[in-house]
């Protein structure tokens, strides 16, 4: 990878490897204070503080799931009521046409189903999955992101050569064990 250093525009970013999550969090906080905004952090298991450090928050998934399930519950109840009380009014077992106990049960089950589907698809869409190619996959050491190492990817698309070099040394100062350039 080092032979590609001459041309800045061909780089996507700098990838730094850290030994533990704490070092990574410190590095993120420091870089963000210094004005770097386009940072991506990778860890082999969920680390809550990473998002706080990155300043990433997302609440829409829960809200969307809730709205979807409520809407489906209402829609289902309406459909069941319409079909059993309006479209095909038919008395079975002496029950009223509008039999709310079973209708509510069905609405509840389908609300859960829609919550499951929304949450799952929401997770995939929010994470832009499936996305089989990612620039970091070019780097051999990135294999350890799913094993035992922590990574910080800083986007350097708009930086000059010198700025990149200073960022590289900054990463090393902050405890990165290895820093490599990532092609786009």
């Amino acid at each position, binding site marked *: 990878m080092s032979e590609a250093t001459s041309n800045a525009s061909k780089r996507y970013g700098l990838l730094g490897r850290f030994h533990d999550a704490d070092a990574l969090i410190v590095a993120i906080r420091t870089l963000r204070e210094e004005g770097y905004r386009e940072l991506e952090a990778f860890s082999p298991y969920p680390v809550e503080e990473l998002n706080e450090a990155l300043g990433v928050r997302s609440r829409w998934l829960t809200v969307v799931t*809730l709205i979807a399930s409520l809407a489906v519950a209402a829609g289902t109840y309406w459909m069941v009521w319409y079909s059993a009380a309006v479209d095909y009014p038919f008395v079975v*077992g*002496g*029950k009223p046409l509008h039999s709310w*106990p*079973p209708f509510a*049960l069905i609405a509840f089950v389908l609300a859960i189903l829609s919550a499951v589907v929304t949450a799952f698809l929401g997770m995939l869409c929010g994470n832009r999955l499936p996305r089989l190619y990612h620039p970091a996959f070019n780097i051999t050491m990135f294999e350890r992101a799913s094993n035992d190492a922590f990574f910080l990817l800083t986007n350097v698309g708009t930086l000059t050569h010198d700025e990149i070099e200073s960022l590289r040394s900054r990463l090393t100062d902050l405890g990165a064990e290895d820093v490599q350039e990532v092609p786009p």
Partner: protein
Amino acid sequence: MKRLLTYLSSSGTSAVRRFRQQPPLVLTLQVALALSLLGALMAWSTLLQAWLTAWVLLAFLPLGAMALLMVHGLTGGAWGDESHLVWRNLVASMPLFALALLPLLLGLDVLFPWMAAHDTLPDVVRHKRFYLNEPFFIARTLLYLMIWVGLSLGLTRPPSSRSSTPRWYAPGLIVWALTVTFFCYDWLMSLEPTFYSDIYGLEIMAICVVSVLALGLFISVVSLRPSIRLDLANLWLAVLLGWAFLAFSQLIIVWSANLPFEISWYLNRSEGAWLWVGRLSTLLFLAIPFAMLLPTAAKRRSGWLRLTAAIALVGYLLHMHWLVWPSFTTSGWAFLFGPIAIVTLATAALWWIGDTRRHALIAFRSVEEKYHDGT
């Protein structure tokens, strides 16, 4: 009748001396007791009905607290480590409730239709006489009360060492479950002697725990750390949904099968105003608390939780009335003696648990350390 009067008056006079230091509570209790006595003279059956309703309404709270303490003893968890005082203070009122149930044994014939003459009973009820008969009923009731007093004494004993859970907690919980179940069959379900439902005991157990969680949070939420509030609120939400599941199960099974002895229970409870009491209590006890307990951030805030708990407790009050009252043919006095019985029992329970515990309940945070030193 006479025995009841002497019992009540003697307990009243002997208490007067102890009460001089706490005038407001004493005054309330004395007035309420006097009114209850008046009620016993004026409308004996209505007072008994009101007394039973008030009793289950209030005594289910310490009963639920017992279960919480034992479950926590078995599973551990920060939620109970930090909140156990409030449950123990509530459990301490159990002996009073045990005493307060005894007068009702005098009026079994007024409360329970199956006490009527054998020939006048319908067939299915006659078949139940092997279980529903006066001596056996009284013996069972005394057994439940003794067990509960025993459990409450064991649970309110100051813990000798915090590290090890007493070995009797697991069997204690089993005994608790069985006594609560059969108590409810005896004292609630048999009010309508043709009705039967084997989920009833589970449903009542869930109600006990749900309501005491609401009460505990209402009392003590300010003194708890936000993470503990969250845990307790989640526990409340879980048991609340569990109760909803049980209640709905009974409803849909009885509704679907539409058998006369079962559905009449619901028909009694959907007549006239009871229909609206039922709907309102479902709203206040289940729907609103459920919605309010969904957002995680809100469950850390004491004001929010206190409001939720207050709403749920009003719902609980309505729900218990909906559960018990429609079994009776009531007189107009019910509206007077219903609240009086509740006030009497509530103040009596507060008086019973004593200064320290009462203050701990009312102003939980300020007294917490004092209480620790005291024990």
